[in-house]
């Protein structure tokens, strides 16, 4: 009893956990520390092996990571009291030149601090014979270790960032699907919102010199415009009882067409650099801002669905709209809310996407409605309405993202990825069905 309850509530979470474990195992491989972290390890090992008075040559290439390595080495060694004989930034030739120069000057070196890459250079292969005068220095590299590529923090952050837009749009979709409807227009609204926001910034807020307030207003206007499209869909569905599938299919075409018309078929990129704050910035605990926003929205939506009157009404309308109506539930208003919320969130998704890509284009969000619906369904929400959980949708979105990311890491072809993803969606729903009938 307890176990089945657990499975019903957290089944998809368990599947997600298993997927993560699977990809952790399959992407388990040698990792080389880089930058400051590598510097710290090398510095520690020099001080430990040769004492604090060691004379050190630092050798790094011209990679950006190696900048950090050199900076880290310099400060760590200085702090330990070691002497830095010279610092090489370049290729093997520069390294040889430096060694020759030290020998010529009659200098001695106790240790050569290298990165994984520079340490493998041939020039250091036989120092005893080549540069006997140096005093037999040791080449010290950061130790390599084994760790899954999948579980590297950049990768995990990447997954979260990739899925943020879909997950946010899926909040509105979950509400709509819980009422027994569907919203096919979200992908197009995403594009419409991205185009509107960037066009407003370009045309009215001052383009590249747009102020923060101007950008904010432009984004809010774009989001509200999408909310209005949602309201229109809702009105068609409630006033004229046209099936949601048809209404939102029509709005999908209308939205996409409008986006292309407004963008005049091109990408709009005349926007300030600061516009990327929402999509690429990371302020709190180095979490990307879009991910923070996603988590906040999920927390709010979860409370709305589980604790409020409105949430209860959304479920009731989807469970049995006639019973709900005869119990005094304002069914039409509840439906309007769901479609407006879906529109607004799709609009927000579009703004985030524009910020991530620092431009607006009508091609954004193509097929996103399907990914969003997939996230909702994989998350355990029933397409017949009345059942489903907000946090299930978040799990569903992450499941899809993890599968895609894991397949990218394990070099699965993108065509094969589509096949797998399709089967996973089917499997998730099948699992749910089996659980229900048991």
């Amino acid at each position, binding site marked *: 009893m307890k176990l089945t309850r657990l499975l019903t509530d957290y089944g998809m979470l368990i599947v997600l956990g298993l997927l993560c474990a699977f990809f952790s195992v399959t992407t388990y491989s040698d990792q080389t520390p880089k930058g400051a972290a590598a510097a710290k390890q090398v510095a520690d090992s020099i001080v430990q092996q040769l004492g604090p008075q060691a004379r050190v040559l630092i050798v790094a290439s011209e990679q950006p990571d190696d900048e950090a390595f050199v900076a880290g080495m310099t400060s760590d060694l200085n702090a330990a009291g070691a002497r830095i004989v010279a610092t090489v930034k370049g290729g093997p030739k520069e390294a040889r030149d430096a060694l020759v120069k030290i020998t010529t000057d009659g200098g001695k070196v106790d240790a050569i601090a290298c990165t994984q890459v520079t340490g493998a250079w041939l020039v250091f292969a036989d120092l005893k014979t080549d540069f006997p005068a140096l005093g037999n220095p040791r080449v010290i590299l950061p130790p390599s270790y084994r760790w899954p590529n999948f579980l590297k923090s950049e990768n995990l952050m990447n997954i979260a960032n990739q899925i943020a837009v879909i997950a946010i749009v899926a909040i509105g979709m979950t509400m709509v699907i819980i009422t027994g409807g569907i919203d096919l227009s979200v992908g197009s609204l995403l594009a419409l919102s991205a185009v509107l926001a960037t066009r407003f910034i370009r045309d009215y807020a001052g383009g590249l010199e747009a102020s923060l307030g101007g950008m904010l207003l432009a984004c809010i206007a774009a989001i509200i415009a999408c909310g209005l499209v949602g309201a229109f869909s809702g009105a068609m569905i409630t006033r004229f009882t046209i099936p949601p599938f048809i209404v939102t299919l029509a709005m999908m075409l209308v939205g996409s067409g409008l986006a292309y018309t407004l963008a005049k078929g091109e990408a709009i990129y005349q926007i300030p650099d600061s516009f990327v704050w929402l999509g690429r910035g990371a302020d709190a605990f180095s979490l990307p801002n879009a991910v923070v926003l996603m988590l906040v929205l999920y927390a709010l939506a979860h409370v709305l669905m589980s*604790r*409020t*009157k*409105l949430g*209860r*009404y959304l*479920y*009731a309308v989807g*469970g*049995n709209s*006639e*019973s*709900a*109506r*005869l*119990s*005094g*539930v*304002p069914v039409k208003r509840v439906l309007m809310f769901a479609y407006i919320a879906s529109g607004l969130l799709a609009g927000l998704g579009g703004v985030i996407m524009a910020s991530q890509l620092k431009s607006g284009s009508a091609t954004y969000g193509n097929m996103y409605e399907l990914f969003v619906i997939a996230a909702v369904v994989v998350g355990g929400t029933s397409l017949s309405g*009345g*059942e489903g959980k907000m946090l299930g949708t978040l799990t569903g979105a992450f499941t899809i993202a993890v599968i895609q990311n894991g397949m990218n890491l394990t070099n699965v072809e993108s065509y094969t990825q589509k096949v797998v993803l399709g089967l996973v969606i089917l499997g998730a729903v099948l699992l749910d069905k089996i659980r229900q009938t048991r």
Partner: protein
Amino acid sequence: MSETVPLLTMRGIVKSFPGVKALRGVDLTLGTGEVVALMGENGAGKSTLMKVLGGAHQADEGLIAIDGRATPFHSPQDSRHAGVAVIYQEFNLVPGLTATENIFLGQEETRAGFIAQAPERERATALFQRLGVEIDLDLPCRRLTTAQQQLVEIAKALAFDARIIVMDEPSAALTSHEVERLFVIIRELKRQGIGVIYVSHRLDEIFAITDRVVVLRDGINVGERPTNQITRNEMIEMMVGRELKDEFPSRASAVGPPRLEVSHLKRGRAVQDVSFTVHRGEILALTGLVGAGRTETVRLIFGADRRESGEIRLDGKLLAINSPRDAIQAGLGLLTEDRKLQGLVLGHSVRENFGLPNLERLSHRGFVQLTQERKEFAGYVEQLTIKVSDQEQRAGNLSGGNQQKVVLAKWLARNSEVLIFDEPTRGIDVGAKFEIYLLMNALVAAGKSIVMISSELPEVLGMADRILVMHEGRVTGEITDARHATQEQVMSLAHA
């Protein structure tokens, strides 16, 4: 019943579901041309036994024999092959198809891959002639009346030469007149040697049509007797396992001043001109044939459908009712005829169903006060003796009687002044019926008013203070002294 081998023998049927042993060794025999009444309270195992016979469930143990030969009943196909047709309460008809198409659904006659329409039509006509009725073969089934749909089901059974027909609550949606017609048909089936298992809660019908009564209780046979050797009270006692003094609890009538007044309600043909008044502390019964416009009338009062004209007053004050929400706010409550489709959200918990019309009061700044909701519901569970495993149980898993009590709790918590009960005891067993009647009496004693729609005349006569009879969208008669009225009196008004 002949002394030879019976048409159907079910012996020692056992069927368990997770947690429940629904059937614990049930026996049932049926002879050629015999009508057997299968009786018992809800949960006694009647439906399960019939589902085993229909092949919808498989028995864990036991034997089923046709003409004395053991026959497999593993699937609905097996059952059909053995000549068994089960007509469930909810008909198995495709609403958009015509009678002919439904009758031959799954066994279409074809000529070179095309449906042989003319021969099918002829056969359908012949089948209905055999039943002595006429059905428009060109109308989609959803446009036929309930009684006509039932005839289509019977014709469908005959179309594949069924020798055993199970009728589950066949009269539930029929008017008295239609029930009479059904009996004529059952007698005709009997004459043609078909065995009928008749499942019903209505004792009058059992006495009118059946030859033998088989009573189940808690998944086991508790009695079996020829119908003409058993009395009404004996039958009830057998079913409930205790002595039942009266089917309807007595109540001192205390009718007060007018409460709800409706005048000149009108909507299309169903409700042409209806006016009546319900008083404080009164049970007003609204009766008549199915299609007389009773349900349609109360739906107009409740704002479920839009009325073309008419006024509704409560305590003399004109109400502007344009939606159920308005009606509920004004103090009306509606217990719908169909609990499953209109009264409850079956997939949701009983607590959530209870809370639905009361959330305005039970929530604070939009947040539902769960503790308060649980506490109130627990109070009603106790007061109305609702049998639930816990508050999170799905409403769909309750028996009919308990479902009705949950619906009642919804409206009691809402403190509705006027309650409209549409067929309050349909599909509810004898014991639970009595409890519902007691609750209705308690409500009027507390000064509430009740409008009760019922097709069961004994219930109308036993419960109401006053009876209104409707016919074709109009009130055609009123009986002010319901206690001393007779069924014949009511029927003559209904057929006016």
